[in-house]
């Protein structure tokens, strides 16, 4: 009877660690140090081992969760995101005096939700997973309870999140009404069979689902919450949510739209085309005007969502593999960049204006070098991994005949280099303000190690990407 639990073991490990963190916090004496963060690491290692064991096994739990290689690849990305986020969070939690148990428990529950979303094959379970991950993230956004910005950001994120959930659920209701099922493979065949008889309702259902997903992956015009939430949350949380949520949401997006709704591709591909183009252009153009690095990276994250949409609209197997590789590269790079923002923050100063980074090369040479790696990778410079990831996405688009979209993608990445380079120039060529030299804090070891590891991963993936690319390409076959 335990065979049916196999596919959800990675999530169970993470959830168990989350519960352990809550219990540990509850029984902790005031002021007593307790290694709650390492509990999360234990859970994530358990998840990593079970993911490795499930590889190629195609286990299914209760008919609604399928641990196929596609889902497991995303789960692996999420485990990396989780480990790096825990390491980056540790100094923030200390410095801000955040409630330790709650912080780590919420992060772990959210990770469990993301893993569920990546492996779920039933629309209702995808919705539940989406809510599990979102509810935890809303709280994490406002976890600095005395911060005015934190409360405002959490409210805006919550409001638009709840709003989009309503659209998503409405879409599911119509899909259920049309087909009598919410299971993805049956939805696909039934929707295709009645494509002519129930046109308008079908368009409505697909459109509502699309709006729900577009909010979660912050596609233009549904991106308004992104910069606010990213700026308001502590940078460690921002790093976590900008990467984890995107990975989980895109996994479900690919699963729903490229397998279940693939028969209707003629109906939605043009809409996604427009979304992708608008997202790439607006994310880049507005990003240029930002003075805060957090907001700049928020718009950069919007633009990266556009590149992923470009892969989604291409729709072939190359594109699905490209999405997986891109998600991995983007996750590691963005977490590294937000890790640096996080260690440069002090209790009363965000230090997140571009001018605060002036002269970083002379005060923190290693951090400046790492930040250069991350920004160049985000901009898509060889030999960083970001270049290979973008290359594959654009190649898939051209292969599928979306030449114009690929051209827009290349042009916007060229423009985006401008705002990444602006920070780099600031770091190397400007003299630091007299007072920043003293206000920039020392780098905590654990977070520093996480940043260096992220940089090494993107260098490795940039120079020797073949093996991981092959894994990504192999994972997309047999996706439900």
């Amino acid at each position, binding site marked *: 009877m335990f065979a049916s639990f196999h596919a959800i073991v990675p999530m169970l490990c993470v959830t168990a660690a989350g519960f352990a963190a809550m219990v540990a916090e509850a029984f902790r004496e005031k002021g007593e140090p307790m290694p709650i963060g390492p509990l999360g690491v234990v859970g994530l290692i358990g998840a990593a081992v079970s993911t490795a064991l499930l590889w190629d096994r195609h286990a299914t739990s209760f008919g609604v969760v399928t641990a196929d290689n596609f889902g497991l690849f995303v789960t692996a990305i999420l485990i990396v995101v989780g480990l790096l986020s825990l390491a980056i969070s540790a100094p923030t939690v200390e410095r801000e005096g955040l409630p330790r148990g709650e912080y780590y428990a919420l992060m772990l529950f959210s990770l469990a939700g993301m893993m569920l979303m990546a492996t779920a094959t039933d629309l209702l379970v995808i919705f539940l997973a989406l809510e599990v991950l979102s509810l935890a993230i809303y709280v994490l956004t406002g976890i600095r309870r005395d911060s005015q910005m934190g*409360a405002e950001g959490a*409210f805006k994120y919550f409001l638009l999140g709840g709003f989009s959930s309503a659209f998503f659920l409405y879409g599911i209701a119509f899909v259920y009404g049309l087909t009598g099922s919410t299971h993805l493979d049956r939805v696909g065949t039934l929707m295709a069979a009645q494509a002519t008889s129930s046109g308008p309702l079908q368009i409505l259902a697909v459109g509502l689902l699309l709006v729900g997903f577009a909010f979660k992956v912050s596609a233009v015009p549904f991106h308004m919450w992104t910069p606010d939430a990213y700026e308001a949350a502590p940078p460690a949380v921002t790093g976590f949510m900008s990467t984890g949520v995107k990975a989980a949401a895109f996994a479900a997006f690919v699963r729903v739209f490229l397998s279940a709704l693939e028969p209707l591709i003629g109906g939605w591909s043009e809409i996604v085309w427009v979304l992708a183009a608008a997202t790439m252009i607006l994310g880049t153009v507005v990003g240029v005007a930002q003075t805060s690095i957090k907001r700049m990276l928020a718009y950069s994250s919007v633009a990266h969502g556009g590149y992923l949409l470009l892969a989604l609209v291409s729709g072939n197997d190359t594109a699905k593999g490209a999405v997986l590789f891109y998600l991995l590269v983007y996750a590691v790079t963005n977490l590294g960049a937000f890790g640096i923002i996080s260690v440069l923050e002090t209790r009363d100063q965000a230090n997140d204006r571009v001018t605060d980074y002036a002269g970083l090369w002379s005060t923190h040479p290693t951090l400046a070098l790492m930040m250069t790696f991350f920004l160049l990778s985000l901009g898509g410079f060889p030999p960083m991994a970001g270049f290979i990831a973008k290359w594959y996405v654009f190649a898939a688009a051209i292969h599928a005949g979306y030449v114009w979209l690929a051209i827009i993608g290349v042009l916007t990445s060229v423009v985006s280099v401008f705002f990444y380079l602006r920070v780099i120039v600031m770091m190397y060529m400007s003299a630091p303000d007299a007072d920043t030299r003293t206000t920039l804090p020392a780098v905590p070891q654990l977070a520093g190690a996480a940043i260096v590891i992220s940089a090494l991963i993107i260098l490795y993936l940039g120079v020797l990407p073949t093996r991981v690319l092959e894994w990504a390409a192999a994972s997309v076959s047999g996706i439900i």
Partner: protein
Amino acid sequence: MGLQAYLVLSAVVFCLGLFGVITRRNTIGILLGVELMLNAVNINLVAFGRFRGDLAGLVFPVFAIAITVAEAALGLAIVILLFRVRRTVMADHLDLLRG
């Protein structure tokens, strides 16, 4: 009454919620709008389940209601937090984050 009547009812309630979210200035009013939208979907689900004679359609709303309740609790908690640190519940006063 046929299925269509229920679908129209749910669409009307959904649009009322949507209208509330867009026009209300009070954050609690906005939350009510979101709740209305989510509950409109429940009407839709129950109607489809009933007319298909399918139990699954009656089970889905139970999940949906549980999620809605969690969202409402969290939303009110965030509004209370907002009031504590900002002394306002009006949405147009929330202008610290811009750009």
